[in-house]
């Protein structure tokens, strides 16, 4: 993952009590973490809650970060666990709600496209988001980590604490399901 080197500097400073250093880490990763969590949880509100909580936890427990994995991986693990326990406490996961809050924070790609293209791409995005939301949690997790976080299988295995073989098969199954859903949706 990029930015590992400068992460180390900031982390060292943050550990020494430099709050601004930690803040810079927040700014560096907040959007990415939030974005992943939105896909993972299907809810913007949940993602915002979990992301915030994750940063707070990371701040408090910064001492325990061993530096053996990338900072973001460690942060993501915290967020992931929070998201899972968050989900357990609430009602069963609601599929991506079509309410505005999700859309508001997401910028459709290609904002300089024509209105009709823009509309199409928005529809497409919604279809993809909906399809992801319909996946079982275990499939959604690997897809999000692979496609949105760009993790290799080993990193996914580390985050989810599953064997690499499981990563591979789950990812395949997830993609197959998405393919089926999108094939029926977009026409």
């Amino acid at each position, binding site marked *: 993952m990029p930015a590992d080197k400068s992460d180390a500097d900031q982390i060292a400073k943050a*550990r*020494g*009590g430099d*709050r601004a250093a930690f*803040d810079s880490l*927040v*700014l560096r990763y*907040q*959007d990415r973490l*939030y*974005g992943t969590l*939105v*896909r993972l949880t299907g809810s913007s*509100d949940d993602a*915002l*809650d979990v*992301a*915030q*909580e994750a*940063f*707070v*936890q990371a*701040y*408090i*427990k*910064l*001492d*325990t970060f*061993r530096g053996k994995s990338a900072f973001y991986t460690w942060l993501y693990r*915290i967020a992931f*666990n929070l998201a899972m*326990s968050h989900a*357990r*406490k609430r009602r069963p996961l609601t599929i991506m709600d079509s309410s505005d809050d999700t859309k508001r*924070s*997401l*910028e459709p*790609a290609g904002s300089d496209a024509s209105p009709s293209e823009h509309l199409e791409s928005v529809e497409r*995005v919604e279809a*993809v*988001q909906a399809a*992801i939301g319909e996946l079982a949690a275990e499939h959604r997790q690997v897809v999000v980590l*692979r*496609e*949105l976080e760009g993790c*290799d*299988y080993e990193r996914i295995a580390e985050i989810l604490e599953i*064997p690499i*073989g*499981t990563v*591979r*098969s789950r*990812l*395949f199954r997830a*993609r*197959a399901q*998405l*393919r*089926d859903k*999108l094939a029926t949706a977009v026409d």
Partner: protein
Amino acid sequence: MADHTLQPDDELLSAYIDGELTADELRAVEQWIASDPAAQAMVEELRAVSKAVQSLPAAKVPADWTAQLQRRLDIVASGGPEGIAHAARSPSVGRSKRGWLWSAAAIAAAVAIMLLLPRDVENELAMREPEVPAPAAAPERDRALADRERGPRALSPAPDSDSSAARTELAEPEARLEELAASEPGIAAMDDAPDSNRDRSDFASIAPLIEGVSPEVASNTYLIVWADVPPESLRQQQINTLLGSNGIYVSTTTDEWGEAAEPVRQQIELRNRLNVDGLAAGDGSGRNSRPLLRNEGAGFARGTGEAEGESGAGDSSGANGADVGNASPQEPEGETILVEATMEQILACVADMQRDTSNFDSIVVEPVNERTLERQWQLQSAHSQAEGQADRFSSDQGETDAESASLSLDADFGQRSSSAESPAKSGDQVAAEAEGLAQQPVAETAPERGKALSKLGVLKEQAVESPQARRLARPAQWYFYNAPPTDAETGYQVREQSKVLTSKMRKGQREPTADKREQIEQLNRYVQQQVAGVAGDEVASGMAEEQPVQALFVLRNNKIVAPAAGETPASESASRPAGEGQGP
């Protein structure tokens, strides 16, 4: 394409587009794609899906989100959750200066609560009180939280005087403890100082509390290994075979628990006591989520040889309920085995359990060390402070005897009564004890903690001559009331609870990991991580494999503790309707 055309090999095509094939696989797949148009089509489809997901727009956090996070970090940085730790650890604060202790704890608790509040409530508060709220500004917060508090404990906000502010402050921790206990990662917030410089000195402040134990000794020499097992396994004592194959032989007799592994028992019972008192009632993540009658809480025997009182097991009338948990002629509820061996051996056993999918499920490794104990004690003190205090003020609210009786557990901790005294004391007696306890919620239990913590260091000095293992008796219902931790902070989930296991599913999901060595190393890493969390970098760089470890294996009858999920293949073959009779 219909699903039935998917071949198992198609999985390789997915790995192919990710560049995650071995050299051999790559060669084979390339040939395959070249010669098979269907494979080629599949590759293209998979790529399309992958691209579609990748092209989802980037997300941005809303503008005020970052500012809100900053505010929360400010609170933490100014010593929020740490305040609780300090209040709990300062016995030098005179016992009679109850007011001071309360205020400090109240402030800290209130601040910690701010951290754990769900966002919507916090937004509300943030709008009213942009600064860090001072204790005197309690009323707004009280009102915001009032509907969350349990009925009998709700106190009308009286913002005028200091003492009443302290009173209302403390009502909050009690209500918030529900969230505390349930919001698992949040609990860790109470543990660690946000400021690294202070971490080391925190141990120094514990020093007066712990008789003769230096912080360096806080290495992880205790582990608890939890598992749910089918009743047949218990009856056949499968664990003996497993331990034996790793060089550990279990003695044939069952002993009383006695004083061995005292910290372990404390930790288990502290952690689950919070569950028992119904704090986790709303949280579906705990296995003990059935609504607990208050009377049963009173009857919950926590030591050896204690009478069962009102506990559910019918045959434990009066006298010696100690053995019922283990060796009853009815279905065994579970078994507890204390093993003394090297870390390597213990982890090898866990690795074996992990592979033995028919006999061991829901495997969790829970470390016991100074930090984990400390955390439970903090939760305990916050809880008993709130309880004792609320007791005082709401005694006319009709709190039941059981409420006081649950405090009698605290009294028991202090008194170490091991005789067959009935825990269901008379109301007056208990109330008096509760009073006394509330006076010094923390300081009085200090010797208890000290003792437990001092035992943590003992094993480290001794070498493990020969591994030993013995069964320890547990009273009836103990296995039901005591469950493994469910949050990642407290315990490492080696294998999660399986739903219905069919042989097909098992193949797909429970890949026996390639190497037992790998498994052991993975477990070792986890344990190391736990140790590192305690004493920082000074700790030995690796967990020496020869390190002597006391591990408590707690095996619970899966039919009792998780009836819905107890359909392992082993139990399927011997399935009878669960007519154990001691089902709660």
